[in-house]
């Protein structure tokens, strides 16, 4: 659906985007992740045809953005970081303009506007001036504008930035629902957002791609140890002794004393060996009950930091 090849954008000596290539399949929700200033918005601006690239190509459904911009732009709905809103218009005036701009036929316009307003829950505020709406509503109006003309591809640049937690959850739900009918590229610097919504993640740092994978694979693939947290009742020193005796365990440390003689331990073991069963039997035999046991998988947060700091060292 979207093919990006060797995309580069330079400003003088500085390369904001440096030789990026990836593809997005039809119907996929792709997360575009990176710290602020990594080149996310620049890449999105190039894909949508707002700015031209220095080198490389972007193709949407086989059409090149430089060669047939109108064909590409017709297929893309774009919500930039700052929603492009005319503050002096009412919501329905604005959406009507968006429909005209995207050449929606007069016949379809009314029903499409009604559908979209229903979908993003704007029907109640349709007659209000955009400048009087709250930030969350403004964001929805921006999203509604992107949906106008039923584009196959949605490009959303930090769609939840600046919203309160409740609104964030709503917008995420909405994006998930939209993912069923659209191909979506979603940028964010917030990790839980991407893992909640996206099927695949591209991590970008300093204009280069640092990793491409599913959120699950990324959490699995990194590092050589797996971590466990175990809360066990019993005297600390003898428990540590028992745990260290189990095959495969590399390291153990008391993390938090939860109660008198109830301590949470952090246990690290070889990735290939599941130590949870031996741990259970060892503790049962010794007569120290395990109150709680859970595995601490690397969160996207950890991976993100690992990848972006590794990159720093290379540079």
């Amino acid at each position: 659906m979207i093919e990006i090849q060797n995309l580069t954008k330079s400003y003088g000596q500085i390369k904001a985007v440096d030789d990026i290539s990836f593809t997005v399949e039809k119907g996929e929700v792709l997360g575009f992740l990176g710290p602020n200033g990594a080149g996310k918005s620049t890449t999105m601006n190039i894909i949508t045809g707002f700015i031209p690239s220095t080198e490389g190509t972007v193709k949407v459904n086989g059409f090149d953005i430089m060669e047939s911009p109108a064909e590409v732009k017709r297929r893309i709905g774009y919500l930039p970081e700052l929603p492009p809103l005319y503050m002096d218009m009412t919501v329905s005036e604005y959406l009507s303009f968006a429909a005209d701009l995207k050449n929606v036929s007069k016949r379809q316009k009314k029903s499409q506007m009604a559908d979209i307003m229903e979908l993003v829950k704007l029907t109640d505020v349709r007659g209000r001036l955009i400048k009087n709406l709250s930030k969350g509503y403004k964001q929805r109006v921006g999203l509604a504008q992107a949906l106008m003309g039923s584009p196959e591809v949605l490009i959303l640049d930090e769609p939840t930035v600046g919203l309160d937690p409740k609104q964030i959850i709503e917008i995420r739900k909405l994006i998930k629902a939209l993912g069923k009918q659209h191909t979506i590229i979603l940028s964010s610097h917030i990790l839980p957002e991407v893992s909640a919504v996206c099927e695949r993640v591209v991590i970008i740092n300093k204009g280069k791609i640092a990793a491409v994978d599913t959120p699950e694979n990324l959490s699995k693939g990194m590092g050589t140890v797996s971590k466990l947290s175990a809360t066990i009742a019993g005297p600390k020193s003898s428990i540590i002794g028992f745990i260290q005796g189990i095959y495969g365990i590399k390291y153990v440390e008391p993390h938090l004393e939860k109660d008198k003689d109830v301590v949470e331990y952090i246990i690290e073991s070889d990735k290939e060996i599941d130590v949870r069963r031996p741990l259970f039997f060892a503790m049962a035999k010794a007569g120290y009950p395990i109150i709680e046991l859970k595995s601490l998988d690397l969160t996207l947060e950890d991976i993100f930091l690992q990848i972006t700091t590794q990159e720093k060292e290379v540079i």
Partner: protein
Amino acid sequence: MFSIFKKEFKSYFTSATAYVMMGMFVLVSSILFYINLVSQTADFSFNLNYMSIILIIIIPILTMKILADERKSGTEVMLITSPTSLTNIVVGKYLAALSVFLIMTAITFIYPIILAVLGEPAMSEIIGGYIGFILLGASFLAFGLFASSLTESQIIAAIVSVVGLVLMWLLQGIAPALGGVTAKVLNWFSLFSRTEDFYAGILSLAPIVYYLSFSAIFVFITIRIIEKRRWSKG
């Protein structure tokens, strides 16, 4: 193009800009007409001459936000990433401003009508004069559009176009004094001096072509400027 035109035209009337400018223009032209009546002359070219000087202020205010504001508020992204071409966007906006100007001008048609009722004005001079006046305004609008594409700030856009138009106005006095090639070059920008024929009731092809090409060139430059800026921005 029509969608942009419609939106832009509407926006003149949702904000106070169009009303205030029309009010100002009608006020000034009424005062001029009053002088007409008091001095008991049916020479309308006097009115058109002063009305065209007032345009130096009015046109920049009509055009100052036309592109600058889109850029500042970030709505430019929506226009450029839509399937509508940049040429259609700029021309649509230009035509919207032109329509407001035409409405404004049409209001003043009432004065020659009154003159025609009261006396016997030279209608050919009036009609020719209005054609010249409208062509002049269209050129001013193109220049204002161009000024608005240079900056994000409406105020700077307005200042650039007022200063530009005042310079062009002064040119007709300066150019002949300088003589030689300089005079010739400066004469290209002398918008005002070319209205003389029209106000005298003469319709000749040269000034008509001049005004139309002046407008077209500035609309074209505006498109190029926006295009150029896209290449250099992040």
